[in-house]
C-alpha cells in the first residue's frame, strides 16, 4: 500500500505536495492512493487531497500539531505508517518533509531516498533516480529488503494532478499518542526567507554584474566604496525584479552577489544554495561558475545576458544576449509589457 504525505504550511500546501500525489498515482492500481494529512484545523486540506486524486485520506487533526515540530510530527507519522502497513511512503522534497522523512526512517529502521527525480518499479521495489554531486551525476537507489520504502520527490519532476472538487473519498480520522513536545516555536520572521525558488516556473537571477553600472551615481551621503557598490547593486536588482515581475518569476542570485551583500542568501542558486529546475532561467551578469551551474543546469531553457561573449554561461544557454544588463533588462521588461499586454 502506498501513502503520500501532504506537506503544508498553516494549511497551505506547496505545489510540490500535489506533485508527490501525482507521483504516487503512477504506482497504484484501483482505488488505493492514500494521503496523510497532519496538522490542526486541516480538514479542508484533506478535502483538497481528495480533489487532487487521493482515494482516501488519513487525517490527524490535533491541537498539538498546530506548529510543525519535526520530532512531534515524526512521532505521529511513524504511528500512522505502522498502523497502515504501507510499504511505500512518498513525500515532496520540501525542507519540512525531507527532515520528517529522515526522522521517520530512523523510527522504522528503513532507508530514506531524498530528492528523487524519477521512479520505476522493478521486482516489487521502487528504484529511484536522484542527483548526486549537485547534479553532476545521477545515481539509482533502491531499498531491496526493508519496508516501508521512504522517498521524497523533487519539485517539478512529476506532474501535479488537476483539482476536481467533484471527486469523493473517505476521510478517516486518526488519534495519535504524542509525547510532550520539547521544542517551542516562538514565531516567524519573514525577512531572509519567503523565496520559493524551487516551485518557480521562471527564475530571473542576478550576479556580480548587477552592481557594475558606473554610469549610475550614488547619493552623495554614500562616501564609502562598499556602500556605493551595494547601492548600485540594489538598483540593478530592481531591474532584475521588474523583469521577474512581468514574467511572474522568482528572483535568484549567484553566490558572488549574496556574499557581496547585494541580496539575502535565501535567493542563492547553486551548489551551496538552492538547486532549481524551472522551465526558464534567465541569468543576468552571471559568469557561469561550475558551482552556480550545478544549481540550475536542469532548467529546461537557459537565457544568458552578459557583456562578455566568452562567459562560460553561454555554453549552457539556449539564447544569449551580449550586452550591458543595465540597458538590456529595462528594454526587455518594456518589450514584454507590450507583447504580453501587461
Amino acid at each position: 500500500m502506498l501513502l503520500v504525505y501532504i506537506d503544508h504550511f498553516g494549511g497551505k500546501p506547496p505545489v510540490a505536495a500535489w506533485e508527490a500525489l501525482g507521483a504516487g498515482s503512477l504506482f497504484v492500481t484501483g482505488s488505493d492512493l492514500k494521503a496523510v494529512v497532519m496538522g490542526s484545523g486541516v480538514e479542508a486540506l484533506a478535502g483538497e487531497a481528495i480533489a487532487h486524486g487521493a482515494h482516501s485520506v488519513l487525517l490527524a487533526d490535533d491541537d498539538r500539531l498546530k506548529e510543525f515540530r519535526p520530532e512531534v510530527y515524526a512521532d505521529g507519522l511513524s504511528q500512522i505508517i505502522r498502523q497502515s502497513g504501507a510499504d511505500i511512503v512518498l513525500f515532496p522534497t520540501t525542507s519540512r518533509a525531507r527532515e520528517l522523512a529522515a526522522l521517520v526512517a530512523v523510527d522504522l529502521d528503513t532507508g530514506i531516498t531524498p530528492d528523487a527525480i524519477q521512479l520505476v518499479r522493478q521486482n516489487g521495489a521502487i528504484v529511484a533516480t536522484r542527483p548526486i554531486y549537485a547534479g553532476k551525476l545521477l545515481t539509482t537507489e533502491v531499498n531491496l529488503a526493508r519496508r516501508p520504502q521512504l522517498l521524497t520527490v523533487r519539485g517539478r519532476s512529476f506532474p501535479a494532478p488537476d483539482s476536481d472538487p467533484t471527486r469523493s473519498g473517505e476521510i478517516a480520522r486518526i488519534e495519535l499518542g504524542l509525547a510532550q513536545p520539547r521544542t517551542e516555536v516562538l514565531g516567524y520572521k519573514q525577512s531572509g526567507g519567503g523565496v520559493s525558488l524551487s516551485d518557480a516556473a521562471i527564475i530571473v537571477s542576478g550576479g556580480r554584474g548587477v552592481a557594475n553600472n558606473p554610469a549610475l551615481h550614488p547619493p552623495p551621503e554614500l562616501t564609502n566604496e562598499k556602500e556605493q557598490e551595494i547601492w548600485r547593486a540594489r538598483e540593478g536588482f530592481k531591474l532584475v525584479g521588474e523583469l521577474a515581475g512581468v514574467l511572474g518569476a522568482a528572483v535568484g542570485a549567484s553566490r558572488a552577489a549574496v556574499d557581496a551583500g547585494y541580496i539575502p542568501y535565501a535567493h542563492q542558486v547553486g551548489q551551496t544554495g538552492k538547486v532549481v529546475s524551472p522551465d526558464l532561467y534567465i541569468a543576468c551578469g552571471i559568469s557561469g561558475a561550475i558551482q552556480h551551474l550545478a544549481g540550475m543546469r536542469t532548467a529546461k531553457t537557459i537565457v544568458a545576458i552578459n557583456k562578455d561573449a566568452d562567459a562560460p554561461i553561454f555554453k549552457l544557454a539556449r539564447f544569449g544576449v551580449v550586452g550591458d544588463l543595465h540597458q538590456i533588462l529595462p528594454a526587455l521588461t518594456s518589450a514584454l509589457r507590450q507583447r504580453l499586454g501587461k
Partner: protein
Amino acid sequence: MKIVVCVKQTPDTAATLTVVGGVASWGDAPLVLNPWDEYAVEQALRTKEAHGGSVTAMSLGPQAAKESLKQALAMGCDEAILISDPALERADSLLASAALAAAIKRIDAPDIVFFGKAAVDTDTEVTGPQVARRLGWPSLNLVAAISELDPAAKTITVERLLEEGRQLVRSPLPAVVSVVKEINEPRYPSFMGIRKASKAEIPIWSASDIGLQPVPEPALTWPEVIAPVRAEQSCEFVSGETPQQQAAALVERLIEEKLI
C-alpha cells in the same frame, strides 16, 4: 560546554565528475573538508569562544579523511576522532547516522553537536536530523542564526530558514544543530593551527570500538551511477544594433518557442 562537530571529506566543488567502473570518479581533483561543514566548524568554535569548553571534530570515512579532520584542527578544534571501518564503507544515511550516534554516545556528556546542512557528494541533507533522532535529542535543522544560548539553563534559540521564512525555535540542550551558509563566515586556519594539526595524533575508532557489532546492513544500494547527458547546446545569440532591438528579438524568439 562540550561541543562536537561532525565533518565529512568530499571532492572539491570545482571537480569534474565522471563514472569509472560504475562508480563516481573525480579524477585527481583534491579532496576537501565538505564546504557546508566549514560553517559547522566555525559555529562550533564561536560557541566555544563565547561559552568556554572544548570542540571535538568527528568524521566517518576512509583513512584519508584524516586530512579533513586536520583542517578542522587547524581552524581551532581541540581534538579529532576518525570513525573508520571497512564494514562502514558502503554506509547509507541510516548506517552512517547509527555509527555517528554511537560514537557521540562515547563522548562524555556533549551539550551540542553541529552538522553542515549537507555533504556536497551525496546531497542527502538527512544525516544531522537522523543522528538527533537516534540520540533522542531535538533536531534543529537549516539553522541560519543562533539568537540565544544559555549553557546554565541548557537552552538554545535558533532561526531556521524554511521556504516560508525564518522560524524561531527554542529547544533544550543537548541538541543537534545543522547549519546553513548564512550563519557565519568561516575563518582560515592559522599558521599556528596548521603546525599543531600536522603533529596531531588522530585516534581511529572501529565499528567494534563504538559498540556497533555486528554492523547492520545498509538499507539502500546504488545499482548504477550515471553521467547525465545534456544535449550539446549551441547558444543562439540574438542580434540587434541597440539594446531595444536585442530585447525585442529575444522576446520574439521566446514567444515563438512558447517559453513565455
